[in-house]
């Protein structure tokens, strides 16, 4: 019963499945199908996310993701707040990587207003973005192994490293996860030399943690058995569905916004983009690990030749910021994929239209295609490998 011929299969049960969490579903082919609702309070769905899974025995026959529990009307609120006012809200979109979201929003506004950014600020933005990539990827890898069943050990090793980076963010911006660090035309705080020294020391021995992680888990037979060949996503389907980020590169399609757009000073740095071959959960996991190693390389180069100079463009205005009418789309490579902000301005201090392209929501669309034919235990691992954060999915 291969997954391919099952996907067009539509069980004759009503679309609305708000019924009791578990219902027996009559079906001519497979006898009793079992419809199980996993979430929104389920220990393994990352945040309030619900999967209505129809099971034939152990095999998933149909999977309907249900989300929106964390919808906070972010885009409508942004239309009634000043451009600066929305900046702290962008921290709460993808609460694991606030710096990259800040940068994406600042990039879009700077495109809209034609704002220049000094060199030191560009370097600082790259440093913060790559540190956030380390934070996010180590977080994901930790959670993925937690879904695979270890009792929190890899998660706590990953969190131990993540905490050290978050302490750096806290000593610089004042808050560990809600940094609110970028402004239109540069950064808010200039890091002190001690901070830079501590950061480069941390980055230098980050690979030691990665090596320990890889020896512990990458060669683990159970890990290979549980993830290789699970949740395969071929490149063509991924591209059609608009998947971006490590999930796309795991399927072997070379698309990294840092290389494609070359925004910020990324062209000045030499780093490589790892590509997978099979597009299964194991490749997605390895993409994150290899990207962490690349980020360490970028950070070392950035610390080496960080220029002196102002961190804020003198012409940038803090209040009464009225960009001329027009629209702009700024996109960056957030750790989850291509994060974009589409702004339409009508000359007033509030944006006329404020739209976020959430990479996690779009990566989530193919969850069913990846899970068909696998068991419940796999669906949890596949969901973990896509790396969703409900703040960004529901906005």
């Amino acid at each position: 019963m291969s997954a391919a011929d099952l996907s067009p299969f539509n069980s004759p049960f009503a679309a609305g499945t708000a019924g009791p969490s578990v219902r027996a579903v009559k079906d001519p082919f497979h006898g009793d199908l079992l419809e199980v609702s996993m979430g929104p309070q389920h220990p393994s769905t990352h945040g309030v996310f619900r999967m209505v899974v129809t099971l034939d025995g152990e095999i998933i026959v149909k999977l309907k993701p249900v989300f929106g529990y964390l919808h906070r009307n972010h885009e409508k609120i942004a239309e009634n707040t000043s451009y600066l006012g929305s900046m702290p809200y962008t921290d709460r979109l993808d609460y694991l990587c606030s710096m990259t979201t800040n940068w994406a929003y600042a990039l879009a506004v700077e495109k809209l207003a034609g704002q220049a950014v000094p060199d030191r600020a560009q370097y600082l933005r790259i440093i913060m973005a790559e540190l956030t990539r380390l934070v996010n990827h180590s977080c994901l890898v930790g959670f993925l192994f937690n879904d695979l069943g270890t009792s929190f050990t890899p998660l706590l090793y990953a969190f131990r490293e993540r905490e050290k980076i978050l302490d750096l963010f806290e000593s610089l911006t004042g808050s560990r996860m809600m940094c609110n660090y970028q402004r239109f035309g540069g950064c808010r705080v200039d890091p002190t030399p001690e901070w830079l020294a501590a950061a480069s020391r941390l980055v230098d021995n980050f690979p030691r943690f990665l090596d320990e992680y890889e020896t512990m888990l990458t060669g683990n037979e159970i890990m290979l058995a549980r993830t290789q060949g699970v949740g395969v996503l071929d490149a063509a389907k991924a591209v059609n569905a608009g998947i971006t980020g490590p999930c796309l590169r795991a399927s072997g399609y070379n698309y990294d916004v840092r290389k494609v757009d070359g925004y910020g000073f990324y062209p000045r740095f030499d780093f490589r983009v790892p590509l997978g071959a099979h597009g299964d959960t194991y490749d997605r996991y390895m993409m994150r690990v290899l990207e962490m190693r690349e980020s360490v390389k970028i950070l070392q180069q950035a610390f080496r030749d960080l220029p002196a100079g102002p961190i804020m463009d003198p012409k940038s205005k803090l209040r009464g910021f009225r960009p001329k009418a027009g629209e702009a789309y700024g996109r960056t490579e957030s750790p989850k994929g291509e994060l974009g902000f589409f702004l339409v301005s009508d000359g007033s201090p509030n944006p006329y239209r404020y739209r976020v392209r959430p990479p996690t929501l779009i990566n989530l669309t193919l969850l069913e295609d990846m899970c068909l034919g696998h068991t419940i235990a796999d669906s949890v691992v596949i969901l973990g490998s896509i790396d969703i954060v409900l703040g960004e999915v529901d906005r």
Partner: protein
Amino acid sequence: MITLTFIALVTLAAAAVAMSQRNLIHSALLLVASWAGIAGFYLWAGAEFVAFAQILVYVGAVSMVVLFAVLLTRRSHAELAIAPASVKRILAAIVAGGAVLGALFGAVLSTPLASAAAPPPAISVKALGAQLLGRHTASVLLIAVLLTVALLGAVVIASTNSKEDAP
């Protein structure tokens, strides 16, 4: 003698209650209790090896088979409602029961049993093993082949089942 009657009572009571239960799972579990009662007999008779084998095989494995069978057979409600009250059915039950009892008592009375229960010979497991693979090797091998065939049969039935299913 007291322990013998006590064990007999327990086993028979479990079997009787099992018969009268409406809930199929309860009756299955009480059946397992009666098997444990039979193991009690062996223990009383001093044959520890057979008693533990009985528990291991019946209480451990066969009970699982029974319970799985009870769970997986899809019984629609129509079959359950057997009309107990019809007179013809009760007469047939009495006749069948009487015949079985008669045969049993006949067999028990006719066999010349030594009256005094001779102390059971304390046979060690080692001697039992030697006996099994000494004089009775043929029967042991026969049983082994029978069980293997049964096991392979089950595997074959289970596996082909899912293949036919694919549309």
